[in-house]
């Protein structure tokens, strides 16, 4: 279906999964987003987005280790798939191309 389409929040979460590598699970992503760009996001929203990304085949998941802080529950660790990586790269390129088209003059004035 809409393979090419990736929402803003989806892109953010996908990027975070890429950044966190082996430690990408729901709560960690919430904390990471808060630390890196100061945005407070809902845990549930992140989860839903992660599952959607999984449906789209951009990430895959597996159960990771348990910690005491989680009351003995295992983490669901997400990893970016090749398709996800390709998608991120394509997005970046798209944005760069578009950015180049913005007149740079304004920069010099300000």
């Amino acid at each position, binding site marked *: 279906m809409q393979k090419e389409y990736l929402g803003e929040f989806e892109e953010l979460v996908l990027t975070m999964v890429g950044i966190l590598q082996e430690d990408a*699970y*729901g*709560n960690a992503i*919430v904390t990471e987003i808060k630390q890196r760009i100061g945005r407070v996001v*809902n*845990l*549930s*929203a992140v*989860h*839903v987005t992660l*599952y*959607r990304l999984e*449906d789209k085949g951009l990430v895959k*998941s597996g*159960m990771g280790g*348990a*910690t005491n*802080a*989680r*009351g003995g*529950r*295992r*983490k*669901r660790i997400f990893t970016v798939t090749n398709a996800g990586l390709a998608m991120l790269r394509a997005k970046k390129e798209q944005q760069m191309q578009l950015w180049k088209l913005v007149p740079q003059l304004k920069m010099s004035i300000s």
Partner: protein
Amino acid sequence: MKKIGPPKFAHRFLRWFCPLDLYEGIEGDLIEAFNEELNEGERKARVRFVIRVFRFFQPGIIFRNKIKVDSMNTILLQNYFKVAFRNLWRSKAYSSITIGGLAIGIACSLVIFLFVYGEWSYDKGFTKADRIYRIGISFFNIGQFASGPEELLDVLPKEFNGIETATRIRKERDVTIKIKDLTFQETSAYYTDTAYFKIFNYTFLSGDPKKVLVGPNEAVVTQKLAIKLFDREDVVGEVIEVGKKAVPFTIAGVVKDLGFNSHLKTELWLSNQSLITGEPAWSSSAFYNYVLLKEKNTETDLRQALDLLFEHHVYPESGKPMGFKSLEDYKKNDMAIKFYVHKLTDIYLKSKLNFEISPGGNESNIYIFSAVSVFILILAAVNFINLTTARAARRAKEVGIRKAMGTSRSKLVGQFLLESITTSLLSMILALLLAEIFLKIFEVVTGALLLDTIWRNPYSVGLFFSFSFFVGILSGLYPAFYLTSFRPVKVLKGIVETGGTSFRNVLVVFQFTVSILLISCALVVQNQLHFMASKDLGFDQKNILTIDHINLLKTSDEAFKNELSNLPGVARSSFHMGEPGSKRILTFRTYQTPKMEHPASIFTYLGDENFLSLNGMRLVMGRDFNKASVSDTASVILNEAAVQILDIVSEPIGAVLDQNLKVIGVVSDFHWESLRNKIAPVAIMMTKEKAELGFKLEAKAIPSFLKTAEERWKQLIPDEPFQYHFVDDNFGELLSKEKVFGKAINFFALLAIFISCLGLYGLSAFTAEQRTKEIGIRKVLGASTLHIVGMLNKRFTFLVLLALGISVPLSIYAIEKWLEDFAYRVELGAGVFIITSLGSLFIAWIAVSYHSLKAAWINPSDTLKYE
């Protein structure tokens, strides 16, 4: 240390809604977040935990599990559809038989559904329908009338407090409406009062429903009529002139057209004040009386009230003056007044009184048609079942492989059900198109206009699609379970027992039983119709032309008659009032012999000395009227039935009745009503009154006669229309309803046999195909074509014969039931069944033989070389 944890209920809630495979990951994250927040305060953390849990309560999480399963299934579903369509495509002949047959069946039942629903829905749209009753009357034994006396509604509300309101309606046919120079023609108008609109809830577009028709000379019109008359809707205050006398009525209200069927078919209501006479007469039927009961009162209350009213008013005011000694004596007599109560919603289908305000429907036809449509639908479904199971072998390998690959039986059943639903939905689409065509045919054949087309009502389209869904499941159920019962190991080894033959045989027998039943019924119906149309009516009804309203000619009537009588081709002519088969003029008189306790009311024709000869009625005793004899104005001629009733069989001629009436002649019984009824007593009296003028003509003289007659009429009274009819048309009209029924039954019988043969055709094709090798070997060994065809046809012949055996007693029962209603009817002979048997056998043989012959003619080397 007290163990601090998140609230238990939140956990439980999460476990309840969260899909199992997500649960651990989510709960872990939640607990982690909770623990991180603990240092900000336990309370706060707990509250936040709960909030977070609730945030997870969203579709993306809750339905994830299910949607995931579904999304896996879509791939399989796609495969199922693909396989279904491939199968349909691969065997186009079978597919078209199943789809086509089912489509015909569904279309047929759709049309009947529309018809039945339309008939059933009459008057159900009025909100107070369950409290509205109409009170009809009978008196002097001259018939039961839908209308009743004016006085009833004056007295009843005083005697019975259960009546909320009541209204009288006087119906006027063929009303002319004049607006300035324009003249319009309406089929009917109701003279009524304001209570009408309290009982029947019409939607008023303008005007006050509480005030309309309160004053004299007020009118209410429907939106449709307003547009017809004035080309706009806001016509309140306009004046219309109604009837010959051009009485002005001011329009006081405009109502919306009823959105449903109603037996009250009029577009125009007028104040009835001028028609209310205030005369206390019980034996009258001037008005249709409708009452609205209070909510707490029932029909029983109304009937009781009418009984009381009968005792307190009718008997003293009407019975006693007639010479009845006691209430019981009066009550028992046929001549007494009786009331007939009908619930509003029963009037259209169940009330069969004389002079209904509009012609009613036929309840038994509705039942017959519904039953027939169900049968036809079953026939079509049976085709489907038969062909699917018969060809099971073709699907056996697929089933085997699917099973070996680990598909569960339930999923296979699902697959086959899906296939049958696909097929039935395809037939549904075809059926909707067919139904449109059937509707047109039905309208042409029966003359009954069937409400809207199917498409106009999206609700019914939806209904029909769910209906076809249902048919799909029903007819797919048996094949699905049968097909999925194969054992994969056997099937894949190539051993397929096609089994189920006996079940298929039962179905074929069922199909033919129904078809043969319908065919024999249709044949008998045709016979009866033919019998009625050609039966000797006891008089000569052919080529008698009657000119109506001859009284309009006033004094020039004799001259008119004499002039026309001299035209070529005119055999006889007679002035009269009333004629056989017609209900335009009804005259009843009471007659009494000294022997009789109470007078008998007998239908009476008034005619001159030529009346008997005009109609070719046969005198069996006595003499005809004689113009010269003065005493003949006090004479009467009776038919044989009347002689019986008056109890003068031993010496009819010269018998003296009350008022010094002398019987001078007896005519043999002749039919003057529908052949459904036994010949009733009739009397004929001399008349000076001239209402109609009848001519007995030669057939070829009719056109020229009509032309001259009309010219003369126009010369004499140019303002009045020249109206005429033929006596044999009277009987044609009486027959027309029966004819419609006959045509409909014919149609269904054809349809049934067609569907059955379609199924048989398919089955025979399959059998022939299955036995190609056997046939090949037989041919090699020297079997003749005839032998092979006979062999293949034997089985089907046997089945059809069996069906014949079952259906004959059934049809005899059904036919007898139908013929019961006819006083004069055909006798059931063996002929009908012989024709039906030979016919259905012949048709079945044709259906089967195509494939049998094909199989028999095939070159054995073609079928055997691959072995």
